Protein backbone atom coordinates (compact mmCIF):
# COMPACT_ATOMS: atom_id res chain seq x y z
CA UNK A 1 0.00 0.00 0.00
CA UNK A 2 1.09 3.54 -0.70
CA UNK A 3 2.70 4.83 2.49
CA UNK A 4 1.72 8.35 1.54
CA UNK A 5 -1.77 7.31 0.61
CA UNK A 6 -4.89 7.34 2.68
CA UNK A 7 -4.16 6.35 6.22
CA UNK A 8 -7.41 6.09 8.14
CA UNK A 9 -7.68 8.71 10.85
CA UNK A 10 -9.94 6.38 12.75
CA UNK A 11 -10.16 2.70 11.96
CA UNK A 12 -13.57 2.27 13.57
CA UNK A 13 -15.16 4.93 11.39
CA UNK A 14 -13.47 3.45 8.38
CA UNK A 15 -14.99 0.03 9.03
CA UNK A 16 -18.42 1.64 9.38
CA UNK A 17 -17.91 3.52 6.12
CA UNK A 18 -16.96 0.35 4.29
CA UNK A 19 -20.27 -1.16 5.37
CA UNK A 20 -22.33 1.83 4.34
CA UNK A 21 -20.65 1.89 0.94
CA UNK A 22 -21.46 -1.75 0.41
CA UNK A 23 -25.11 -1.14 1.17
CA UNK A 24 -25.47 2.04 -0.82
CA UNK A 25 -23.59 2.14 -4.12
CA UNK A 26 -24.88 5.67 -4.69
CA UNK A 27 -23.00 7.01 -1.64
CA UNK A 28 -20.32 9.49 -2.63
CA UNK A 29 -22.04 10.30 -5.93
CA UNK A 30 -23.85 13.40 -4.64
CA UNK A 31 -22.82 16.93 -5.69
CA UNK A 32 -19.57 18.64 -5.22
CA UNK A 33 -20.87 20.34 -2.13
CA UNK A 34 -19.50 21.40 1.18
CA UNK A 35 -21.83 21.55 4.12
CA UNK A 36 -21.48 22.40 7.78
CA UNK A 37 -24.09 21.20 10.23
CA UNK A 38 -24.39 22.61 13.74
CA UNK A 39 -20.67 23.12 14.21
CA UNK A 40 -19.61 23.86 17.79
CA UNK A 41 -16.03 24.60 18.68
CA UNK A 42 -14.42 25.47 21.99
CA UNK A 43 -11.02 27.04 22.39
CA UNK A 44 -10.06 26.49 26.02
CA UNK A 45 -12.78 28.33 27.96
CA UNK A 46 -14.11 30.13 24.91
CA UNK A 47 -17.11 28.82 22.99
CA UNK A 48 -15.95 30.09 19.59
CA UNK A 49 -18.47 28.56 17.21
CA UNK A 50 -22.08 28.22 18.35
CA UNK A 51 -23.81 25.77 16.06
CA UNK A 52 -22.77 27.19 12.69
CA UNK A 53 -24.67 25.98 9.60
CA UNK A 54 -23.58 26.65 6.05
CA UNK A 55 -23.43 25.10 2.63
CA UNK A 56 -21.46 25.83 -0.51
CA UNK A 57 -22.37 24.36 -3.88
CA UNK A 58 -20.22 23.98 -6.99
CA UNK A 59 -19.38 27.33 -8.52
CA UNK A 60 -20.15 29.21 -5.31
CA UNK A 61 -18.01 31.29 -3.00
CA UNK A 62 -19.03 31.72 0.61
CA UNK A 63 -17.70 34.96 2.04
CA UNK A 64 -17.26 34.87 5.83
CA UNK A 65 -17.60 38.23 7.52
CA UNK A 66 -17.72 39.39 11.11
CA UNK A 67 -15.66 41.25 13.68
CA UNK A 68 -12.29 40.05 14.93
CA UNK A 69 -12.68 37.07 17.24
CA UNK A 70 -16.03 36.02 15.77
CA UNK A 71 -14.50 32.72 14.69
CA UNK A 72 -13.80 33.16 10.96
CA UNK A 73 -10.37 31.58 11.15
CA UNK A 74 -11.62 28.93 13.58
CA UNK A 75 -14.40 27.99 11.17
CA UNK A 76 -11.97 27.65 8.25
CA UNK A 77 -9.61 25.53 10.36
CA UNK A 78 -12.50 23.35 11.46
CA UNK A 79 -13.70 22.91 7.87
CA UNK A 80 -10.26 21.80 6.69
CA UNK A 81 -10.00 19.33 9.55
CA UNK A 82 -7.21 20.96 11.55
CA UNK A 83 -9.57 21.62 14.47
CA UNK A 84 -11.95 19.02 15.73
CA UNK A 85 -15.51 20.30 16.28
CA UNK A 86 -16.94 19.24 19.62
CA UNK A 87 -20.34 18.86 18.02
CA UNK A 88 -21.60 18.89 14.46
CA UNK A 89 -20.18 17.70 11.16
CA UNK A 90 -18.51 18.95 8.05
CA UNK A 91 -19.86 17.12 5.02
CA UNK A 92 -18.09 16.90 1.68
CA UNK A 93 -20.34 15.51 -1.02
CA UNK A 94 -22.67 14.15 1.61
CA UNK A 95 -20.03 12.36 3.62
CA UNK A 96 -18.47 13.35 6.93
CA UNK A 97 -14.95 14.51 6.14
CA UNK A 98 -13.67 12.83 9.31
CA UNK A 99 -14.29 9.43 7.75
CA UNK A 100 -11.42 9.93 5.34
CA UNK A 101 -9.48 13.09 6.04
CA UNK A 102 -6.57 12.42 3.65
CA UNK A 103 -8.96 11.99 0.73
CA UNK A 104 -10.70 15.24 1.68
CA UNK A 105 -7.39 17.05 2.06
CA UNK A 106 -6.39 15.94 -1.43
CA UNK A 107 -9.39 17.97 -2.67
CA UNK A 108 -8.75 21.20 -0.78
CA UNK A 109 -6.26 24.03 -0.58
CA UNK A 110 -6.01 26.12 2.58
CA UNK A 111 -4.28 29.48 2.75
CA UNK A 112 -3.81 30.83 6.26
CA UNK A 113 -3.02 34.33 7.53
CA UNK A 114 0.64 34.06 6.57
CA UNK A 115 1.83 32.80 3.19
CA UNK A 116 3.38 29.35 3.91
CA UNK A 117 6.77 30.15 2.40
CA UNK A 118 10.34 29.49 3.44
CA UNK A 119 12.30 32.72 3.64
CA UNK A 120 15.57 31.11 2.49
CA UNK A 121 14.14 29.67 -0.72
CA UNK A 122 13.17 31.47 -3.90
CA UNK A 123 9.54 31.79 -4.94
CA UNK A 124 9.98 29.10 -7.58
CA UNK A 125 11.68 26.69 -5.14
CA UNK A 126 8.97 27.31 -2.59
CA UNK A 127 6.22 26.39 -5.03
CA UNK A 128 8.18 23.35 -6.19
CA UNK A 129 8.48 21.90 -2.68
CA UNK A 130 5.09 23.04 -1.42
CA UNK A 131 2.86 21.93 -4.29
CA UNK A 132 5.19 19.15 -5.42
CA UNK A 133 4.16 17.01 -2.47
CA UNK A 134 0.64 16.90 -3.89
CA UNK A 135 1.16 16.65 -7.62
CA UNK A 136 3.80 16.54 -10.31
CA UNK A 137 4.60 19.98 -11.62
CA UNK A 138 6.17 20.82 -14.93
CA UNK A 139 8.35 23.93 -15.07
CA UNK A 140 6.05 25.28 -17.79
CA UNK A 141 3.12 25.02 -15.41
CA UNK A 142 5.13 26.74 -12.69
CA UNK A 143 6.05 29.59 -15.02
CA UNK A 144 2.44 29.93 -16.10
CA UNK A 145 1.22 30.25 -12.53
CA UNK A 146 3.91 32.76 -11.61
CA UNK A 147 3.03 34.82 -14.65
CA UNK A 148 -0.66 34.79 -13.83
CA UNK A 149 -0.03 36.43 -10.46
CA UNK A 150 2.57 38.78 -11.96
CA UNK A 151 5.45 37.22 -10.09
CA UNK A 152 7.71 36.09 -12.92
CA UNK A 153 10.10 39.03 -12.53
CA UNK A 154 11.14 38.16 -8.99
CA UNK A 155 10.45 34.43 -9.01
CA UNK A 156 14.12 33.60 -8.51
CA UNK A 157 14.79 35.93 -5.62
CA UNK A 158 14.82 34.57 -2.05
CA UNK A 159 11.40 35.12 -0.52
CA UNK A 160 13.07 36.99 2.35
CA UNK A 161 13.73 39.89 -0.03
CA UNK A 162 10.12 40.16 -1.19
CA UNK A 163 7.50 42.55 0.14
CA UNK A 164 4.47 41.23 2.03
CA UNK A 165 2.27 41.79 -1.03
CA UNK A 166 4.70 39.93 -3.28
CA UNK A 167 4.78 36.99 -0.86
CA UNK A 168 0.99 36.93 -0.92
CA UNK A 169 1.09 36.72 -4.72
CA UNK A 170 3.47 33.75 -4.57
CA UNK A 171 1.05 32.03 -2.19
CA UNK A 172 -1.78 32.71 -4.67
CA UNK A 173 0.29 31.09 -7.41
CA UNK A 174 0.60 28.02 -5.16
CA UNK A 175 -3.14 28.02 -4.68
CA UNK A 176 -3.84 27.86 -8.40
CA UNK A 177 -1.17 25.19 -8.92
CA UNK A 178 -2.78 22.84 -6.41
CA UNK A 179 -5.61 22.25 -8.89
CA UNK A 180 -8.17 21.25 -6.31
CA UNK A 181 -11.91 21.94 -6.23
CA UNK A 182 -12.15 23.50 -2.76
CA UNK A 183 -10.37 26.69 -1.74
CA UNK A 184 -10.34 27.79 1.90
CA UNK A 185 -8.88 31.29 2.13
CA UNK A 186 -8.17 33.27 5.27
CA UNK A 187 -7.94 37.00 4.43
CA UNK A 188 -6.63 36.38 0.90
CA UNK A 189 -6.34 40.10 0.10
CA UNK A 190 -4.18 41.08 3.09
CA UNK A 191 -1.22 43.26 2.10
CA UNK A 192 -2.35 43.49 -1.51
CA UNK A 193 -2.74 46.74 -3.49
CA UNK A 194 -5.90 47.52 -5.48
CA UNK A 195 -4.57 45.62 -8.49
CA UNK A 196 -3.74 42.65 -6.27
CA UNK A 197 -7.23 42.64 -4.79
CA UNK A 198 -8.70 42.54 -8.28
CA UNK A 199 -6.33 39.65 -9.03
CA UNK A 200 -7.73 37.67 -6.10
CA UNK A 201 -11.24 38.36 -7.36
CA UNK A 202 -10.26 37.26 -10.88
CA UNK A 203 -8.66 34.05 -9.63
CA UNK A 204 -11.74 33.18 -7.57
CA UNK A 205 -14.03 34.01 -10.50
CA UNK A 206 -12.11 31.68 -12.78
CA UNK A 207 -12.06 29.00 -10.13
CA UNK A 208 -15.84 29.22 -9.70
CA UNK A 209 -16.39 29.28 -13.45
CA UNK A 210 -14.48 26.01 -13.67
CA UNK A 211 -16.91 24.53 -11.14
CA UNK A 212 -14.76 25.02 -8.06
CA UNK A 213 -15.90 26.08 -4.59
CA UNK A 214 -14.40 28.62 -2.23
CA UNK A 215 -14.82 29.80 1.32
CA UNK A 216 -13.06 33.01 2.26
CA UNK A 217 -12.79 34.95 5.51
CA UNK A 218 -12.60 38.63 4.61
CA UNK A 219 -12.57 42.11 6.11
CA UNK A 220 -13.13 43.86 2.77
CA UNK A 221 -15.68 42.64 0.25
CA UNK A 222 -14.15 40.43 -2.41
CA UNK A 223 -14.21 41.92 -5.90
CA UNK A 224 -16.04 39.12 -7.63
CA UNK A 225 -18.30 39.31 -10.65
CA UNK A 226 -19.57 35.76 -10.34
CA UNK A 227 -23.20 35.15 -9.47
CA UNK A 228 -22.10 32.51 -6.98
CA UNK A 229 -21.08 34.91 -4.19
CA UNK A 230 -22.85 34.27 -0.89
CA UNK A 231 -22.30 35.59 2.61
CA UNK A 232 -22.15 34.17 6.10
CA UNK A 233 -22.01 36.66 8.95
CA UNK A 234 -20.41 35.37 12.13
CA UNK A 235 -21.18 37.33 15.26
CA UNK A 236 -19.52 37.65 18.60
CA UNK A 237 -21.35 35.93 21.41
Amino acid at each position, binding site marked *: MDVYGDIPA*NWRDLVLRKFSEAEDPQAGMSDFTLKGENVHL*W*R*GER*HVLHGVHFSVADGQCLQLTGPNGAGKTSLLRTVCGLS*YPEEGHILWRGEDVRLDLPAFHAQLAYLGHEPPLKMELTARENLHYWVGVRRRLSSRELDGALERVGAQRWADRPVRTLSAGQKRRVALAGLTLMAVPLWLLDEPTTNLDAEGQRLVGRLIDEHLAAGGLAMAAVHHELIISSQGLRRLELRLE
Partner: protein
Amino acid sequence: MAWTWFHRLASPPHVYRTAERLTPWFAWSAAILIVAGLIGGLYLSPPDYQQGDGYRILYVHAPSAWLSLLVYTTMAVAGGIGLIWRMKVAHAVAASCAPIGASFTLAALVTGSLWGKPMWGTYWQWDPRLTSELLLFFLYLGYMGLRAAFEDVQRSDRISAVLAVVGVINVPIIHYSVVWWNSLHQGPSVMYLGKPTMPPSMLVPLLIMFVGFTLFFAAVLLMRLRGEVLIRERAASWVREVVHS
Protein backbone atom coordinates in the same frame (compact mmCIF):
# COMPACT_ATOMS: atom_id res chain seq x y z
CA MET B 1 -25.16 0.71 18.79
CA ALA B 2 -23.01 -1.49 20.95
CA TRP B 3 -21.08 1.59 22.07
CA THR B 4 -23.93 3.43 23.79
CA TRP B 5 -23.61 1.58 27.10
CA PHE B 6 -19.92 2.36 27.07
CA HIS B 7 -20.52 6.05 26.53
CA ARG B 8 -23.24 6.21 29.15
CA LEU B 9 -20.92 4.51 31.62
CA ALA B 10 -18.21 7.03 30.80
CA SER B 11 -20.47 10.10 30.88
CA PRO B 12 -19.10 12.73 33.26
CA PRO B 13 -22.08 12.88 35.67
CA HIS B 14 -22.19 9.11 35.93
CA VAL B 15 -18.46 8.93 36.55
CA TYR B 16 -18.57 11.75 39.09
CA ARG B 17 -21.39 10.20 41.10
CA THR B 18 -19.99 6.68 40.93
CA ALA B 19 -16.58 7.92 42.03
CA GLU B 20 -18.20 9.76 44.92
CA ARG B 21 -20.09 6.65 45.97
CA LEU B 22 -17.14 4.28 45.68
CA THR B 23 -14.43 6.40 47.31
CA PRO B 24 -15.27 5.59 50.97
CA TRP B 25 -15.38 1.86 50.24
CA PHE B 26 -11.92 1.89 48.72
CA ALA B 27 -10.56 4.29 51.32
CA TRP B 28 -11.77 2.32 54.32
CA SER B 29 -10.74 -1.09 53.01
CA ALA B 30 -7.33 0.38 52.10
CA ALA B 31 -6.98 1.84 55.59
CA ILE B 32 -7.89 -1.44 57.27
CA LEU B 33 -5.54 -3.48 55.10
CA ILE B 34 -2.64 -1.06 55.47
CA VAL B 35 -3.01 -0.99 59.26
CA ALA B 36 -3.16 -4.79 59.28
CA GLY B 37 -0.11 -4.93 57.03
CA LEU B 38 1.77 -2.50 59.27
CA ILE B 39 1.07 -4.59 62.36
CA GLY B 40 1.97 -7.77 60.52
CA GLY B 41 5.10 -6.37 58.92
CA LEU B 42 6.50 -4.35 61.77
CA TYR B 43 5.48 -6.45 64.74
CA LEU B 44 4.25 -9.95 64.03
CA SER B 45 6.58 -11.20 61.33
CA PRO B 46 9.92 -12.71 62.40
CA PRO B 47 13.25 -11.00 61.69
CA ASP B 48 15.16 -12.18 58.64
CA TYR B 49 18.02 -14.58 59.36
CA GLN B 50 20.46 -12.43 57.34
CA GLN B 51 19.13 -8.89 57.48
CA GLY B 52 17.58 -8.94 60.97
CA ASP B 53 14.86 -6.33 61.35
CA GLY B 54 16.27 -4.16 58.56
CA TYR B 55 14.36 -6.12 55.93
CA ARG B 56 11.07 -4.72 57.29
CA ILE B 57 11.53 -1.77 54.93
CA LEU B 58 10.42 -4.26 52.27
CA TYR B 59 6.80 -3.84 53.43
CA VAL B 60 6.70 -0.22 52.32
CA HIS B 61 9.36 -0.26 49.60
CA ALA B 62 7.97 -3.08 47.47
CA PRO B 63 4.33 -1.87 47.39
CA SER B 64 5.53 1.67 46.55
CA ALA B 65 7.61 0.32 43.68
CA TRP B 66 4.60 -1.73 42.52
CA LEU B 67 2.39 1.37 42.54
CA SER B 68 4.95 3.38 40.60
CA LEU B 69 4.61 0.93 37.70
CA LEU B 70 0.88 0.26 38.07
CA VAL B 71 0.08 3.97 38.05
CA TYR B 72 2.24 4.65 34.99
CA THR B 73 0.56 1.83 33.11
CA THR B 74 -2.90 3.03 34.15
CA MET B 75 -1.99 6.53 33.02
CA ALA B 76 -0.81 5.34 29.61
CA VAL B 77 -3.83 3.07 29.04
CA ALA B 78 -6.23 5.84 30.05
CA GLY B 79 -4.37 8.31 27.84
CA GLY B 80 -4.49 5.91 24.90
CA ILE B 81 -8.23 5.40 25.33
CA GLY B 82 -8.70 9.15 25.56
CA LEU B 83 -6.73 9.67 22.35
CA ILE B 84 -8.49 7.03 20.30
CA TRP B 85 -12.06 7.64 21.43
CA ARG B 86 -11.68 11.32 22.33
CA MET B 87 -13.04 10.56 25.76
CA LYS B 88 -12.60 13.34 28.28
CA VAL B 89 -13.15 11.07 31.27
CA ALA B 90 -10.22 8.88 30.23
CA HIS B 91 -8.00 11.95 30.04
CA ALA B 92 -9.23 12.95 33.48
CA VAL B 93 -8.10 9.54 34.79
CA ALA B 94 -4.66 10.01 33.20
CA ALA B 95 -4.35 13.50 34.66
CA SER B 96 -5.23 12.15 38.11
CA CYS B 97 -2.56 9.46 37.94
CA ALA B 98 0.64 11.45 37.45
CA PRO B 99 1.15 13.08 40.88
CA ILE B 100 0.17 9.88 42.69
CA GLY B 101 2.61 7.80 40.66
CA ALA B 102 5.45 10.31 40.95
CA SER B 103 5.08 10.54 44.74
CA PHE B 104 5.16 6.76 45.19
CA THR B 105 8.13 6.48 42.84
CA LEU B 106 9.94 8.95 45.04
CA ALA B 107 8.91 6.95 48.13
CA ALA B 108 10.26 3.75 46.52
CA LEU B 109 13.54 5.49 45.72
CA VAL B 110 14.09 6.92 49.19
CA THR B 111 13.04 3.76 51.06
CA GLY B 112 15.24 1.76 48.69
CA SER B 113 18.23 3.90 49.50
CA LEU B 114 17.42 3.78 53.25
CA TRP B 115 17.36 0.02 52.94
CA GLY B 116 20.60 0.07 50.99
CA LYS B 117 22.59 1.83 53.69
CA PRO B 118 22.62 -1.06 56.22
CA MET B 119 22.79 -3.72 53.48
CA TRP B 120 25.37 -2.24 51.10
CA GLY B 121 27.02 0.21 53.45
CA THR B 122 26.04 3.07 51.15
CA TYR B 123 22.85 4.97 50.43
CA TRP B 124 23.12 4.59 46.72
CA GLN B 125 24.16 1.63 44.61
CA TRP B 126 23.66 1.54 40.86
CA ASP B 127 21.50 -1.48 41.33
CA PRO B 128 19.24 -2.20 38.33
CA ARG B 129 16.01 -1.93 40.28
CA LEU B 130 16.86 1.40 41.86
CA THR B 131 18.27 2.74 38.60
CA SER B 132 15.11 1.80 36.68
CA GLU B 133 13.05 3.41 39.41
CA LEU B 134 15.08 6.60 39.08
CA LEU B 135 14.53 6.66 35.31
CA LEU B 136 10.82 6.07 35.87
CA PHE B 137 10.83 9.07 38.17
CA PHE B 138 12.34 11.15 35.34
CA LEU B 139 9.62 9.88 33.01
CA TYR B 140 7.00 11.07 35.50
CA LEU B 141 8.71 14.45 35.79
CA GLY B 142 8.77 14.80 32.02
CA TYR B 143 5.10 13.89 31.79
CA MET B 144 4.10 16.40 34.44
CA GLY B 145 6.34 19.05 32.90
CA LEU B 146 4.74 18.56 29.49
CA ARG B 147 1.26 18.66 31.02
CA ALA B 148 2.05 21.91 32.81
CA ALA B 149 3.47 23.49 29.64
CA PHE B 150 0.06 23.87 28.00
CA GLU B 151 -2.66 26.19 29.17
CA ASP B 152 -5.47 24.57 27.26
CA VAL B 153 -6.60 21.46 29.15
CA GLN B 154 -7.73 19.64 25.99
CA ARG B 155 -4.41 20.04 24.24
CA SER B 156 -2.45 19.24 27.38
CA ASP B 157 -4.51 16.04 27.78
CA ARG B 158 -3.95 14.85 24.26
CA ILE B 159 -0.28 15.76 23.95
CA SER B 160 0.64 14.18 27.28
CA ALA B 161 -1.31 11.06 26.33
CA VAL B 162 0.98 10.61 23.32
CA LEU B 163 3.98 10.89 25.64
CA ALA B 164 2.51 8.40 28.13
CA VAL B 165 1.91 5.84 25.39
CA VAL B 166 5.44 6.29 24.02
CA GLY B 167 6.78 6.10 27.58
CA VAL B 168 4.97 2.93 28.52
CA ILE B 169 6.30 1.19 25.41
CA ASN B 170 9.79 2.24 26.47
CA VAL B 171 9.56 1.30 30.16
CA PRO B 172 10.32 -2.41 29.59
CA ILE B 173 13.05 -1.54 27.06
CA ILE B 174 14.68 0.81 29.55
CA HIS B 175 14.32 -1.70 32.38
CA TYR B 176 15.85 -4.62 30.48
CA SER B 177 18.67 -2.53 29.06
CA VAL B 178 19.48 -1.44 32.62
CA VAL B 179 19.40 -5.06 33.81
CA TRP B 180 21.67 -6.03 30.90
CA TRP B 181 24.03 -3.17 31.73
CA ASN B 182 24.11 -4.20 35.38
CA SER B 183 24.93 -7.81 34.56
CA LEU B 184 28.18 -6.52 33.00
CA HIS B 185 29.20 -4.62 36.09
CA GLN B 186 28.12 -7.22 38.66
CA GLY B 187 27.29 -5.03 41.63
CA PRO B 188 26.29 -6.43 45.00
CA SER B 189 22.57 -7.16 45.11
CA VAL B 190 21.47 -8.20 48.56
CA MET B 191 17.88 -7.08 48.32
CA TYR B 192 15.29 -9.67 47.72
CA LEU B 193 11.71 -9.14 46.83
CA GLY B 194 9.05 -11.78 47.27
CA LYS B 195 11.51 -14.66 47.28
CA PRO B 196 9.54 -17.88 46.81
CA THR B 197 11.13 -19.33 49.93
CA MET B 198 9.66 -16.61 52.14
CA PRO B 199 7.83 -18.10 55.12
CA PRO B 200 4.10 -17.29 55.23
CA SER B 201 4.54 -15.16 58.36
CA MET B 202 6.64 -12.78 56.21
CA LEU B 203 4.76 -13.20 52.95
CA VAL B 204 1.20 -12.64 54.19
CA PRO B 205 1.79 -9.08 55.50
CA LEU B 206 3.54 -8.25 52.21
CA LEU B 207 0.58 -9.44 50.15
CA ILE B 208 -1.80 -7.53 52.42
CA MET B 209 0.28 -4.40 51.85
CA PHE B 210 0.21 -4.88 48.07
CA VAL B 211 -3.58 -5.06 48.08
CA GLY B 212 -3.86 -2.20 50.57
CA PHE B 213 -1.63 0.12 48.52
CA THR B 214 -3.54 -0.73 45.34
CA LEU B 215 -6.87 0.08 47.01
CA PHE B 216 -5.35 3.29 48.37
CA PHE B 217 -4.37 4.27 44.83
CA ALA B 218 -7.92 3.56 43.67
CA ALA B 219 -9.38 5.73 46.44
CA VAL B 220 -7.10 8.71 45.76
CA LEU B 221 -7.56 8.28 42.02
CA LEU B 222 -11.35 8.45 42.40
CA MET B 223 -11.09 11.58 44.52
CA ARG B 224 -8.80 13.34 42.06
CA LEU B 225 -10.91 12.08 39.17
CA ARG B 226 -13.95 13.97 40.47
CA GLY B 227 -11.97 17.18 40.48
CA GLU B 228 -10.50 16.59 37.03
CA VAL B 229 -13.91 15.71 35.57
CA LEU B 230 -15.36 18.95 36.94
CA ILE B 231 -12.49 20.98 35.48
CA ARG B 232 -13.15 19.46 32.05
CA GLU B 233 -16.90 19.86 32.18
CA ARG B 234 -18.33 23.08 30.83
CA ALA B 235 -21.90 24.25 30.93
CA ALA B 236 -23.61 21.18 32.31
CA SER B 237 -26.66 21.23 34.53
CA TRP B 238 -25.39 18.37 36.65
CA VAL B 239 -22.43 20.50 37.71
CA ARG B 240 -24.89 22.92 39.32
CA GLU B 241 -26.42 20.13 41.37
CA VAL B 242 -23.04 18.79 42.44
CA VAL B 243 -21.51 22.13 43.30
CA HIS B 244 -24.39 23.62 45.22
CA SER B 245 -25.38 20.60 47.24
